[in-house]
């Protein structure tokens, strides 16, 4: 184990998987120089431009081509420069990749990974700041990974590449420079397995992606006030490990779900529904939710911060949930 950044951890996963399996290749805009966020740095030099290919700005074309290559037995890893642009490729992702194995009677599968940076906090405005994972969580046939630290980033990406089915792999921009301990070499994080990132007794915080980091910050602040918060990271939204979440809630009796997608029909709506199904008798208060407000993400820093979740908002929600029980 050594401390590396989230970007370095993802880069390492790509190096290892491309080394391991010649069928793995990369398509994306500016991936050769890794000009924008740097996740694919050094891969073109190492594996050649046949396997690390710069593409024109043609999101529909490259994701569609990824589906085709996967149908033909390859394992494309596609980079979409910002998650917002994935909307240009919804047809190959949802109408094709997510359905082909089922629709063709199981004759083939689509082992494709689409990696993409989501989220705000960098003042890029309404069309470069969205967290759309809830949309994909709703759709049978596509897996959704939302890592929140470098080790999970590496382990989930390696697992995603080896998965025989399509995976949407969401990388929050605010995580890229965060450091953490990451195992060297083989390190796989299985899909559908949540993990307790911080143990606690009074309340369960379920965080999605980067919001796990904000939950940990909130838990730290709450600890100073004598409130013990447990932080659970589902790590993948589809499949979703409701058992681990429910187990935690059964112990704490209270829960706040935190995500950066919009509140309405968010990942938290589904998680809260699962909790009330599986742990209703143990709940001492209504489940709290913190999410982006239901407005586009404005560009100006103060307005943006007003719309997005943060540790303060999480701590407030926790106090509300605790107060509601009294």
């Amino acid at each position, binding site marked *: 184990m050594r401390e590396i950044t989230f970007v370095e951890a993802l880069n390492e996963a790509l190096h290892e998987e491309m080394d391991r399996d010649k069928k793995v290749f990369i398509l994306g805009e500016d991936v050769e120089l890794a000009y924008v966020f740097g996740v694919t740095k050094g891969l073109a030099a190492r594996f050649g431009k046949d396997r690390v290919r710069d593409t024109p*700005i043609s999101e529909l074309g490259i994701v569609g081509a990824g589906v085709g290559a996967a149908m033909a037995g390859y394992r494309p890893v596609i980079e979409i420069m910002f998650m917002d642009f994935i909307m*240009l490729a919804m047809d190959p992702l949802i109408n094709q990749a997510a359905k082909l194995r089922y629709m063709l009677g199981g004759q083939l599968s689509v082992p494709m990974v689409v990696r993409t940076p989501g989220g705000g906090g960098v*003042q890029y*405005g309404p069309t*470069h700041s969205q967290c759309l994972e809830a949309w994909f969580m709703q759709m049978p046939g596509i897996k959704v990974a939302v890592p929140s630290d470098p080790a999970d980033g590496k382990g989930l990406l390696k697992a995603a590449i080896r998965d025989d089915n399509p995976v949407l792999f969401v990388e929050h921009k605010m995580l890229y420079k965060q450091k953490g301990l990451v195992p060297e070499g083989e390190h796989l994080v299985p899909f559908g397995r949540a993990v307790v990132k911080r143990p606690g007794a009074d309340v369960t915080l379920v965080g999605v992606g980067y919001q796990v980091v904000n939950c940990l910050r909130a838990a730290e602040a709450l600890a100073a006030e004598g409130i013990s918060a447990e932080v659970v990271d589902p790590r993948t939204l589809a499949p979703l490990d409701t058992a681990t979440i429910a187990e935690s809630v059964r112990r704490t009796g209270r829960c706040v779900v935190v995500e950066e997608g919009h509140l309405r029909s968010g990942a938290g709506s589904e998680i809260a529904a699962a909790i009330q199904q599986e742990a209703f008798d143990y709940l001492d208060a209504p489940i709290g939710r913190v999410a982006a*407000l239901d407005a586009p993400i404005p560009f100006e820093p103060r*307005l943006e911060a007003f719309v997005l979740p943060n540790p303060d908002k999480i701590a407030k929600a926790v106090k509300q949930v605790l107060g509601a029980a009294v």
Partner: protein
Amino acid sequence: MAAKVKSKSASRSLSRDDYLRMYRTMLCIRRFEEKTDELFMAGRIKGAVHVSIGQEACSVGVCSALNQDDAILTTHRGHGHSIAKGTRLNEMMAELLGKATGLCKARGGSMHIADISKGHYGAHSIVGANMPMAAGMGLAFQLEGKGRVAVVFFGDGASNQGSFHESMNLCAIWKLPVVFFCENNHYAVSFHVNRSTAVRDISLRAQSYNAPGVTVDGMDVMAVYEATKEAVARARRGEGPTLIEAKTYRFFGHSRGDPQFGPYRTKEEVERWRKRDPLLVAEKMFKVTEAEKKAVQGEVAEEMAVAVEFAEKSPEAPLPSALEDVYA
């Protein structure tokens, strides 16, 4: 007084005042972009900015051929087009600085400048998104029958989006009054056009849509103006779209303080293009005198100072305004 202008197709209908006005607008764009870059590097402008230094002849050549009620739609690199279309400078600078007085109330920022009152229907930061909208505006203008035209600016990179091809075809089959203006600055971020695009001249793609396609020198404001004038006249006559490709170059990096050259292009390449700086080309072509230059520089500097002061003195946008204009 009519000046002799050395450009293959120099217009006889323009006066010396018109030429000086074009030169002045180009200089205004240059100074605005320099100021923007400076404010970004100083941390006073947040987010993403993409300056258009080197491409001023495209903005001014096109917009000089338009009426105020004609429409433009532009891109992430849209400050120049905005200024050339008459966008209010003070309110534009206020938007970049994220103030309540900004054109978009601090919600859109640099990549989403719009001034509907001037026929500027927005910078659109999703590459290729503006072209179908231009087709739709063209359709509305055709139905309306008042002879208005929509011009859409886009880059070499954007010409590889399906939206370009779908929009060109729609405009061609319905003979919509739309001008497709492609600023081929040879790069999409770090990706050279010769690698991204199968044809050497993007204008060739017009043939697939049975529309005229022309390539012009994007560093020569008059060449751009003449080509646009012809395309606009054709659109107003109901003859449909034209694709204009201007070969040009961005002198700065792709965005927000990127290096001006390397790792994807050489210093020599940048310097070669800088010799054809559109401002220098215009000064020579219009025979701008030292006295005229000085006067224009002074006026533009004053305008910039006023815009920055207006922006800086403007109030911050109130937090609840982040939830206004949300209706569902």
